């Protein structure tokens, strides 16, 4: 009897350990910001502190031929605003997903594939359609002509959020001192895909400062003044 009880307890303990390991592997490690530590914080820190994650619906604003178009995502986040910023920016940088796997309007089935904000191809542009069906672009066109705003090598370095609602989003591309060169529309698409995605999804954010490799620039890549925080621009959203 006692050996049987001990075996039962041991089995339960093993199950608990395995479950915790699985949870950590699938959702608790944090995005690319994890490991930077310090003030930037990370999803893993939030998870490590025991903050629960839950699936939450977001609209990510990807470049398209006629402006920025929303792609719906359901992503695991905590209640912490910085975590939400980190998750939506990471999902934005992951791109709109493959053009061939775009179930219209659906939420992603099952768990997110990435640690914190893995790309889930449940994107659909409101009003969807073929507006940008022939678009190409550096990253290739995704669902409904959506385009990845930055090359895949660009990662989220860190996130800060000030008490007065200014989000600082640091994008990093190793060995690239400057952001990609671009015309004004391309630059607007890149910068405001981040600004609108952050400010329109995280209520605590009203302005966004975009950093490149940890530095705030006079202009992002030659046109837009990024020496001051940017407010979201809804006029860029495709009708």
């Amino acid at each position, binding site marked *: 009897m006692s050996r049987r009880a001990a075996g039962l307890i041991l089995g339960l303990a093993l199950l608990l350990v395995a479950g915790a390991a699985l949870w950590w592997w699938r959702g608790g490690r944090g995005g690319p910001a994890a490991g930077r530590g310090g003030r930037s914080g990370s999803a893993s820190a939030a998870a490590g502190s025991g903050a629960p994650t839950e699936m939450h619906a977001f609209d990510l604003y990807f*470049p398209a*031929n006629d402006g920025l178009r929303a792609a719906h995502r359901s992503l695991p986040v905590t209640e912490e605003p910085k975590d939400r910023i980190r998750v939506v920016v990471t999902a934005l940088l992951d791109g709109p997903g493959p053009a061939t796997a775009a179930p219209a309007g659906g939420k992603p089935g099952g768990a997110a594939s990435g640690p914190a904000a893995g790309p889930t191809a449940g994107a659909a542009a409101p009003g969807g359609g073929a507006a940008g069906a022939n678009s190409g672009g550096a990253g290739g066109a995704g669902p409904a002509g959506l385009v*990845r705003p930055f090359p895949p090598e660009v990662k989220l370095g860190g996130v800060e959020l000030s008490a007065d609602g200014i989000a600082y989003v640091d994008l990093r591309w190793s060995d690239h001192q*400057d952001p990609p060169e671009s015309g004004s529309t391309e630059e607007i698409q890149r910068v405001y895909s981040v600004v609108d995605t952050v400010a329109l999804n995280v209520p605590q954010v009203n302005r966004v400062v975009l950093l490149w490799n940890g530095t705030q620039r006079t202009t992002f890549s030659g046109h837009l003044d990024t020496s*001051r925080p940017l407010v979201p621009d809804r006029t860029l959203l495709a009708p």
Partner: protein
Amino acid sequence: VRAVLTRSDDSKLPLDSRTAIANQNKADLFVSLHLNSSLGSGAHGAETYFLSSQATDTRAGDAAASENSATAAPAAADGGQETQDLQMILWDLAQTHHLAESQRFAGMVQAELNQALELRDRGVKQAPFRVLMGAAMPAVLVELGFISNPEEEAKLQNPAYRADLIDALVRAIGRYLETSQPDTRSAPPLPPPQGAVRSSPSSPTPP
């Protein structure tokens, strides 16, 4: 009409230096010509920008805060830096007084481009473009077409097409000058910020 080019070759010129040249020449209009690109190759057409009011609002707030700060702590150890910051903000604000005229001029430029070239009308838009901020006169940034669009890129390589674009711009400038009061065109030029002509890290679409 006398045109002053900020540069006549493919050299790079800091953004603030471009408006400084316009201000020093007491120009009536500032026109920044660009060729556009988009992340999607399907984008095409011309568009004309003037400075967004959001950009000027933000700077007005910064200027007020800086002035208040300088008044409250005139003997601060970094007072010199504050003065320089304020000077820079005032430089940024130079365009604020000309937004209405800039918008009017932008509409004329866009109309001429649309009419002459049968381009897709991408419209008059606003953005916080750095190159427009220091201009002490009505100022626009004109995107003449997308070199990321193969068809439009081919057109732009045709000298006759480029001449048509310039003709459209000249007509727009003529229309504007005919319909404006001289005293609404330009304000006394601001001096460039001392030691603070901030260079742009890159200048991808000359001029």
